[in-house]
């Protein structure tokens, strides 16, 4: 099995996380060959591949072409991390409130991104998504097991709140903090709320989340429409306009 891992506009954190498998990489190497991974290898095998992992979102024409090329060369394409699954933090550049702020501050034109950041599935078919910023290593290992055993890999169909409840974490929303847990896809085992930090929604929208009641709660807590808009639009534009 030939595996490749590539990077588009991103912080490289997901590839770093990939290497954070530590010794488990040696296990992976028993079933797969890493044919291309420029962050770790000088030799780049031009493919075709069986699995291509992609972090980041394309923000140049050249990157869009690269992405399409990788898609054409691989059987399975995996979007790795929130830039690839949602567009990533760089999507904030498109926020209108931001544009006004820039104008006020610099009194000049807004920087232009020739290709606005979009998730990979805006351009190509994506077989699997590993959510999170960065993605969860446990989900990567689960995905690899599923691929090897020819089983279907399921995205988590529950919210971060459910995981907080299971871990008996004190609710941060109840403490007045702007937690996105009720509307965010679970699978991270509520790692941030469990340490007192609000969920900021890096795993994207939980499809059955009660958005209107969540927004009502945030308003009750005194957050303005502008603030709520920003909380909802951090890792990729999604839930509300």
């Amino acid at each position: 099995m030939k595996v490749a891992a590539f990077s588009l506009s991103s912080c490289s954190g997901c590839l770093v996380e990939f290497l954070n498998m530590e010794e488990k990489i040696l296990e992976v190497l028993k079933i797969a060959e890493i044919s291309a991974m420029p962050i770790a290898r000088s030799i780049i095998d031009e493919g075709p591949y069986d699995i291509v992992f992609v972090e980041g979102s394309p923000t140049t024409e050249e990157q869009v072409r690269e992405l399409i090329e990788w898609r054409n060369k691989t059987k399975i394409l995996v979007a790795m991390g929130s830039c690839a699954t949602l567009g990533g933090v760089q999507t904030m550049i498109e926020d209108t409130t931001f544009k006004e702020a820039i104008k006020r501050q610099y009194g000049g034109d807004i920087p232009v991104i020739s290709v606005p950041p979009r998730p990979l599935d805006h351009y190509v078919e994506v077989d699997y998504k590993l959510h999170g910023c960065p993605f969860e290593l446990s989900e990567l290992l689960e995905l690899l097991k599923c691929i090897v055993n020819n089983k279907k890999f399921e995205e988590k169909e529950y919210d971060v709140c459910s995981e907080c409840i299971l871990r008996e974490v004190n609710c941060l929303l109840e403490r007045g903090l702007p937690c996105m847990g009720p509307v965010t896809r679970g699978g991270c085992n509520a790692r941030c709320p469990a340490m007192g930090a609000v969920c900021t929604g890096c795993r994207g929208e939980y499809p059955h989340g009660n958005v209107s009641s969540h927004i009502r709660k945030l308003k009750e807590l005194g957050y303005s429409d502008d603030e709520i808009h920003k909380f909802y639009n951090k890792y990729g534009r999604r839930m509300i306009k």
Partner: protein
Amino acid sequence: MIEIPLITRVEGHGHLSIKIEDGSVDVNFGIHEGPRYFEAILVGRKWYEVPEIACRICGICTVIHAMCAAQAVENAANFQDELLETYRNLMIYSSHIQSHVLHLYFLAWPDFVRKDSVISAYPEYGGIIKKAFKMKGIVNELTEIFGARKTHPATVVPGRFTKDITIRELEYYVKKMKEILPLLKETAELFSQIEYPDIRVDGVHLALTDDRTVPLYHGDLKIFGGERFSPVDYKNYIQEKVVPPNTTKRSYYNGKPIMVGALPRLNINHRYLREEAKEFFSSPSENIMHNNLAQAVECYHYGLVAIETAEELIAKRREYISRKVDFKFRNSEGIAAVEAPRGVLIHHYILNGDEVKYTNIITPTAINFEHIERAVYSRVVDLINQDEETIKFEAEKVIRAYDPCISCSAHVVKITKN
């Protein structure tokens, strides 16, 4: 013309072209990272979101970006907390060692054993690589205890950690750090036995200094053998300019290229290195290839310092209790200079009310840019009669010595004034 379209085993996307004509050499180190405009993204966000967003500039220096952002916001609020800073240092030590181990073993070391990667080196050097995995695994785990995540820590906000840190957690930190201390020492040994080519650049070394330690989180900025200044005056000493055809900002001190990183840190603060670590780095060096060695020596030094710091907290039973803080700003300015694993990092914000109004971020790789190019030039001139493969191999090796972080350096926002 020698082209390296994608420099491998570095963070991010960079390319190098070398032109050799009638004995003259021209080197161009370029960046083709897609734009992400972090400085612009941060404008209009809340003060408490700044570390969370800023740390996403880079997946390798993520912890120090978060810490630097938090400190800059705190400076704007005139907030200081000595115990918080001590605890932050513990997390900085583990993430600093993590970054060095990743760079030394996975990115740089294959060059010195003539392999294309750790993977192909594994059959021959399995023992060394397993040790590297062990060190990285343990320091990552320690970062995660404090940060909730090893990459992009969630608990680092201005004014506090969002969680308590208990004596039990400190004891675990000490136990695990002690477990890898012999390996950190071996790392210093291993990289002190490598024979490095001698490459020098007519430039200056810059690092933090505090007359006590080899500081990573607080201090004045100092030019090796020269001036010392406060981080708030950075704009008077570090001149940034764009040299066409490249679009990346480069930094100069009195017209000279600046080097930042482990080597400048140890040169400037040599006398404050732990004696056990000093053995492997006996005197200051101008050879940029010694940056690899300096990183390895730092692994051991900061391992020792981390244990000592945590043990002192345990002895005094000083737990960290998280308390909610709230800041309000009135066009307040905050500047912080810290040491990322790859060198001086500066975050500068102006906040008003509870929002960010202005940002300027200077990253180590942006500072190093001109220095890197000149070092490659100097190496290529030495090798001018060698074959293309040798020149390519050696040029990439020079770039890797700086441990460049290209995502970091490509964040720069260019705004055209009306």
